């Protein structure tokens, strides 16, 4: 996996600091996600990984520092505006819309790409109809990509865990993201499901050309698929580099296994 120096940064966080009262969730954390890369964020429980992701997608507002998307400062944008710019996000646990079908879940991701007004929605006239058709076709392309054909009309609340996670991923892809932010996609999955999902993540990078930011606990997966790894501990970045580099970094080893670092 190449480490091209000419790659442009897609999503950057600079010196983010986030406090909840006396708790410092993040202390001056920086991360630079480059075009075409799978960038993993790892660290022990409570290290601040999810806080970092929530700052990237706008759910938390850090007290200081900035978030840039393709060079543009987006620190003050609301989450739905960031989504419209092209920051896709998948969630920890099950966060799909349970009462909708798999296809409706995916279609809901197109909300900010569609132009129908409220009057058009009530009348459902010609142009609204054809817009729905266009986006149904695009939703079907995602269904095809994620191999969800059998489940397209199944109510998501009735699907097993692994499939719901795939619907979650499909909904994020419907945002037509320029970068995909994934929070612990592998948690709670069987080995087979993990293998499938790892393959999808690689496909998203290779076939769709979308860079991925990934928080993950499964080291095997992280080491196998990521191009770059940032290690966070107690709200601070303690190492950053290729998987091979960070896995021999003494501070990383200490953070994971305990012990003092000279």
């Amino acid at each position, binding site marked *: 996996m190449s480490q091209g120096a000419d790659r442009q940064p897609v999503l950057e966080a600079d010196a983010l600091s986030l406090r909840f009262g006396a708790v410092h969730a993040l202390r001056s954390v920086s991360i630079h996600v480059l075009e075409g890369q799978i960038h993993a964020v790892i660290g022990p429980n409570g290290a601040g990984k999810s806080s970092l992701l929530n700052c990237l*997608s*706008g*759910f938390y507002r850090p007290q200081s520092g900035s978030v840039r998307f393709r060079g543009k400062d987006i620190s003050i944008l*609301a*989450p*739905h505006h*960031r*989504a*419209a710019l092209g920051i896709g*996000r998948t*969630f920890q646990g099950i*966060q*799909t*819309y*349970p*009462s*909708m079908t798999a296809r*409706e879940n995916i*279609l*809901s*991701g*197109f*909300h*900010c790409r*569609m132009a*129908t007004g*409220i009057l*058009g*929605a*009530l*009348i*459902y006239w010609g142009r*609204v*109809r054809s817009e*729905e*058709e266009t986006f*149904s*076709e695009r939703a*079907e392309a995602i269904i095809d990509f994620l191999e969800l054909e059998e489940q397209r009309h199944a109510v998501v609340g009735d699907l097993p865990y692994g499939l719901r996670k795939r619907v979650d991923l499909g*909904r*994020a892809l419907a*945002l037509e993201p320029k970068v995909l932010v994934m929070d612990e996609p592998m948690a709670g999955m069987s080995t087979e499901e993990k293998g499938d999902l790892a393959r999808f993540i690689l496909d998203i990078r290779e076939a769709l050309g979308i860079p991925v930011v990934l928080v993950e606990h499964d080291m095997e997966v992280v080491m196998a698929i990521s191009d770059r790894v940032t290690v966070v501990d107690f709200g601070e970045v303690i190492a950053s580099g290729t998987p091979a580099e960070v896995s021999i970094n003494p501070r990383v080893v200490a953070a994971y296994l305990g012990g003092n670092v000279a």
Partner: protein
Amino acid sequence: MLPTGVHSLTYADDARILRTSRARHWLAALVVALLAYPAFAGPYMLGVFTHLFITLMAVYGLYVTVGMAGQINVAQSAFVGVGAFATAKLSGYEIHFMLVIPLAALITGFVSIFFALPAARVKGFYLALTTLAAQVVFPIIILALPTEWLGGLVGMSVEPIRMGGLTLGAPIHFYYFTLVVVALLTVAAFNLKRSRFGRAMIAVRDNDVVAEVMGVPVFRTKVLAFFVGSLFAGVAGACTAYFLQFVTVASFTLFASVWYLGMLIVGGVHSPLGAILGVAFITFLQEGLHAFANTLMQSGASGGVLFALTSVALGGCILIALIFEPRGLAHRWSVARTTFQLWPFPRN
């Protein structure tokens, strides 16, 4: 689920409201029956149906706000009242009714936005309480305003609808008039559900935290749900005003708001079909019980006790319906249809 052998070949086909030709035939039969009904019914039953159609319009609105977007609204009757008073006022300026009804709907929609603003901060029971404020404030404001504006305690008379040489006044006129309006609103309610706003509202109901990160502006969608729900209420109010030809604050009570919610819950909050079934079920149950009580009274029973008992019986029926089908009659209907289609194989 669809019967065997029904396939969609286009996406448009897939998005249809009525998927099978059998469903379309049933709808055609229903429309013919409703059109032919006045030939067989007396003015009393036509009045009952007119009232049912108007109630259904208001409950469609509640379906949008409560059913789709999950924003509890216990002030629907007040919003119907806003529509009714707007219609009474506008009709006084000799504006054509084709313009009065949309204007009344829009006025109601904009009034509702004010009461939707707390939805930015509160959910569930707390939001229910803030909408309760709308219901309580409505008569206070009407009574506090100068009598020349909205009639105050006395109320306002409404100029009747004139179409060509015809002035709408007879029960049969109102029957057909409200039938056409409710048919249009039915199509609108079903359309909204399959549009991007329908999905956005359901997304907000199912998981508002995630919806925001997935590109759905949550606050705007909540306000929109109140706005659209009140458009329906406004049309219901306009029809009420034209039907009664007189509006007073006493017609738009908290009691009515709670009934609207009750009808939606009995029918099922998750589809416009639930609104239809709930309104029809409760209206006909009420009428049936009254008719039954009348028959008993003619055979000598005491009226006061009897009519109190009809309310008890009505409450009991609603309770039973909810205990056996908490997800509403619409869900029971879809279960029955699936069972029928899979027969002789068991469901699941």
